[in-house]
């Protein structure tokens, strides 16, 4: 991973994180919050492969665990997004051939991340994680993330291509 690429990913994660807690979570939407950080991780993994994906996922997850108003155990989102980044990265080749694959990956990531995060919470006896809370979140998380990915994923992919291209030219 080239230095400009690392810088781009770091900027994308910070911007996504800031937008998510100050803007997206305040939108009067029922159920889940559109997960922009998840989409940045998925898109970076799709363009960079499993290694880039899992590293980005871990870093973004750790940021999500530490940045206020986070209140849960540090490492929960890091664990979830590492898995999401790695698995999304495995579909790198397929997602270049078809525009349908990234959509399926985003949908799976949206549902999978909620389930995995809730699963870790259930193992830790988190009183906030109840089955009804999870089923309330799942459909809205799926819809918001898929809709938002139509804009976010192509944007991240285009930016990554541009940065890689410039790195090659040098």
């Amino acid at each position, binding site marked *: 991973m080239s230095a400009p690429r690392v810088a781009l990913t770091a900027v994308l994660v910070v911007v996504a994180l*800031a937008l998510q*807690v100050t803007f997206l*979570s305040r939108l009067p939407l029922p159920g889940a919050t559109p997960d922009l950080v998840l989409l940045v991780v998925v898109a970076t993994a799709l363009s960079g492969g*499993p290694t880039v994906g899992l*590293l980005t996922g*871990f870093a973004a997850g750790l940021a999500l665990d530490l940045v206020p108003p986070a*209140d849960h155990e*540090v*490492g929960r989102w890091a664990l979830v997004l590492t898995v999401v980044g790695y698995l999304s990265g495995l579909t790198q080749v397929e997602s270049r051939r078809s525009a349908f694959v990234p959509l399926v990956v985003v949908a799976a990531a949206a549902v999978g991340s909620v389930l995995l995060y809730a699963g870790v919470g259930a193992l830790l006896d988190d009183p906030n994680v109840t089955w009804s*809370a999870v089923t309330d979140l799942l459909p809205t998380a799926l819809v918001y993330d898929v809709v938002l990915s139509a804009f976010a994923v192509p944007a991240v992919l285009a930016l990554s291509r541009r940065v890689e291209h410039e790195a090659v030219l040098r």
Partner: protein
Amino acid sequence: MNRDTRRTRVLLALLLVTSVALVLIDHRAADESPLDGVRGAAAAVFGPVEQVAAAIAGPVSDAVDGVSSIGDDADEVDRLRRRNEELTRRLRTGELDRNRAAQLDSLLHVAATGRYRVVPAQVIAIGAAQSFSWTVTIDAGTRDGVRADMTVLDGDGLVGRVKTAGPSTATVLLAVDPESSVGVRLEGSMEVGFTTGQGIDDDGALDLRLLDGQSTVAPGDRLVTFGSQGDTPYVPGVPVGVARRVQGSPGSQTRTAVVEPYVDFTALDLVGVVVEPPRTDPRDAVLPPRPTPSESTPRPTVTVTVQPGGRR
């Protein structure tokens, strides 16, 4: 680099083990976690970023060009249209300002009746629903005198308590979080109990549990905070909510009820942090005035229509 190699899998295993280790360390330590220092540093660094982002993402009014040339009719129409937009915008922002002023008024009113000393703050960030915790970030921190375990309220009543405080921001645990437990007292009587949050279930209602099984709670009974030992985390006398549905049969160990909080937790904006508790317990003096019976129970009116000729 791009392929799923042995090295990638080793890295994956390494990061997963690291995450699990972090979770376990943080979970075990609960109150005094070795990771609190890292959390504080993250709040110090990212808090200002959130303040800037909140300022930008807030109501952004369109910049209207002030200068427009007056010439032919099209220009005149254009100029008037712009003028109209400008005035509408001013009217809207005026409403927003009045709204803010009213919020501040009611906040100060609660502060004056209860004799709390309150630091006003704005909610700048809210946690994602997927994180299953009901916390918000406010733009006041240790520099403004905010410390952990201080009561947070707004003009309507109890919001929650400060969980952690950074230099310029603080994280507030809302009363609707299932981890939040507040000691309360029924209005008028000395009956005490606890409310716990229910999260996103049941529209942000609270569960009330009275300690004395013999005591009674009726729908419409109002609750204020009981006050914690040493006034942390909850100062006494902050309005909490109204009992709505009463559950539990007589003779059971505890009485339970569902409480509708005064505060609308989905529309938090301006809040206050109690930096100095009242010297004496204000009891229920800060509750809003009880609606008069004539307002709450409208008298039924019956209209009898008599038609000449009786039956059709």
